[in-house]
């Protein structure tokens, strides 16, 4: 198989090809760079391609394979796998833009983000930085500074956000693996709309050191891929406490709990519920069909409601609005006109919220988490749609949910926001056939720290052919 054909496979297949000597890491990196050159004019997933760095790193991998340390290098799980990261991750020598114009004036990062380093230590090769909503405040990646990320499955539609470039690059087979962040749905929404797998781990699981924050008390980082085994391999490679030096105060610094060895264990013994109420009332027919398809495949017939879900979503909104705005208060004072016009007024309003509202939101959030924890005494997994509908056209302002007209940009995360509010791990899995042409994702949700179970269920759905992530025919 040549490098171009291999680029359409998953990361595990690529690593195996490099491991077996069928292909070099350099050939794979060149194929990824060529695919980006050929397709990104239409997709606009990348904001920076680190060509020289990628080729240098790939050559190092190849040299290491040929050296006396070759046996050890061959064991690396992501050997030679090209990957890219949302442009809020630090990349040494580049400005960390976080989707903004303002950060173009910032000092270039002196070192890579912790998760970038961990993926490269696992053998992967960084090829670039990806488009996103400014400061991660959005669900559509219609970035006014660099243009929108286009959905590879329909270039007239949004890729979702805020990690839109991360999902689009994987759907377009520019790279098999990317990283994004998720504060209220920014991994799960674009994964849903671009038809790829996305993992939002438990809050506090992966260290955020070297990434640009949005809302420290809600921010999560995680991977996108076209197979569940790739998500598991990447997630496993990124786990673990940080040790000495700079570290993320919001990270639980837990020891590694490998998930990849267990993803093939199937569904036996798992109690799976379907979320009703809020999650069905705010979904268009394709989202309901996608959930029903997954529920049927899982044999899940119990419908349950999350207690305090409406209030949980409200709490997430207020905490995000206030904490996100406070972070940018100096720039909001000095240069508000340089902010993304689509989110600037929301930031300005957030700066003005009374402290008592936000303090109460954090108390309700804790109460909501306690009530949902009791639900997990009866269920191991809960499922719900990831987005209320499939990808909307770029520029669309409104959509309709159960007869109510709502603005698209703040509401595409209606179904993800109540889950990340309490930090539960979720794998977004892509369903085809629920909409005539487009994919839509389903959230496979677990109790805190049970990434092993959400990945196990996702893998069972994948091997049954219920969910899959095809490369877009660009």
């Amino acid at each position, binding site marked *: 198989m040549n490098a171009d054909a291999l680029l359409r496979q998953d990361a595990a297949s690529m690593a195996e090809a490099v491991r077996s000597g069928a292909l070099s890491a350099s050939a794979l990196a060149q194929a990824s760079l060529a695919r980006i050159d050929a397709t990104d004019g239409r997709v606009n997933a990348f904001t920076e391609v680190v060509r020289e760095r990628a080729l240098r790193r790939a050559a190092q991998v190849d040299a290491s394979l040929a050296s006396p340390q070759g046996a050890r290098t061959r064991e690396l799980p992501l050997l030679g796998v090209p990957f890219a990261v949302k442009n809020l991750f630090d990349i040494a020598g580049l400005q960390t833009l976080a989707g903004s114009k303002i950060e173009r004036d910032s000092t270039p990062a002196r070192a890579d983000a912790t998760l970038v380093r961990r993926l490269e230590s696992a053998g992967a090769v960084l090829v670039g930085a990806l488009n996103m909503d400014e400061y991660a405040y959005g669900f559509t990646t219609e970035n006014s500074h660099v243009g929108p990320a286009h959905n590879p499955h329909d270039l007239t539609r949004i890729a979702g956000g805020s990690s839109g470039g991360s999902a689009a690059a994987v759907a377009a087979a520019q790279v098999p693996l990317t990283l994004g962040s998720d504060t209220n749905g920014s991994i799960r929404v674009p994964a849903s709309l671009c038809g790829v797998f996305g993992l939002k781990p438990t809050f506090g699981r992966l260290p955020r050191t070297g990434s640009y924050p949005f809302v420290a*008390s809600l921010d999560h980082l995680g991977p996108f891929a076209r197979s569940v085994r790739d998500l598991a391999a990447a997630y496993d490679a990124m786990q673990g406490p940080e040790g*000495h030096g700079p570290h993320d*105060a919001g990270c639980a610094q837990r020891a590694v709990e490998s998930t990849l060895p267990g993803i093939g264990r199937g569904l036996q013994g798992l109690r799976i519920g379907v979320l009703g109420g809020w999650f069905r009332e705010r979904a268009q027919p394709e989202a309901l069909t996608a959930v029903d398809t997954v529920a049927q495949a899982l044999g899940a017939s119990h419908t349950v409601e999350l207690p*305090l879900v*409406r*209030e949980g979503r*409200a*709490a997430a*909104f*207020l905490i995000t*609005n206030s904490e996100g705005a406070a972070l940018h*208060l100096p720039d*909001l*004072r000095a240069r*508000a*006109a340089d902010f993304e016009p689509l989110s*600037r*007024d*929301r930031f*300005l*309003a*957030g*700066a*003005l*919220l*009374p402290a008592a*509202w936000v*303090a*109460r*939101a*954090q*108390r*309700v*959030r*804790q*109460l909501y*988490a306690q009530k949902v924890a009791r639900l997990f005494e009866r269920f191991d997994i809960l499922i719900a749609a990831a987005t209320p509908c499939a990808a909307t056209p770029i520029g669309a302002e409104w959509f309709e949910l159960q007869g109510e007209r709502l603005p698209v940009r703040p509401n595409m995360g209606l179904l993800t926001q109540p889950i990340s509010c309490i930090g539960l791990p979720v794998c977004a899995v892509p369903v085809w056939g629920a909409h005539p042409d487009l994919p839509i994702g389903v959230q496979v949700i677990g109790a805190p720290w049970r990434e092993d179970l959400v990945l196990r269920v996702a893998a069972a759905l994948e091997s049954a052919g219920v969910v899959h992530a095809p490369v877009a025919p660009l």
Partner: protein
Amino acid sequence: MTLEQIEAYVDASAVALGLRLRRDHRVGVLRYFALAAEFAALLDAVPLDPQDEPAVQFTPVGPREVEA
């Protein structure tokens, strides 16, 4: 909150924070503040005990350990 109350609060708190709201930004700010006020009212209706603690925790920071 009424629209008048929102306008009065937004303008006064913007002054307190040193945030000069341009006229073309203020319209959107008032709309988003009104939305936040609706969410705040929803949370205000949730019964909480004094023992219901906030979700955020502080972790004390010790000095770096010196290796023996």
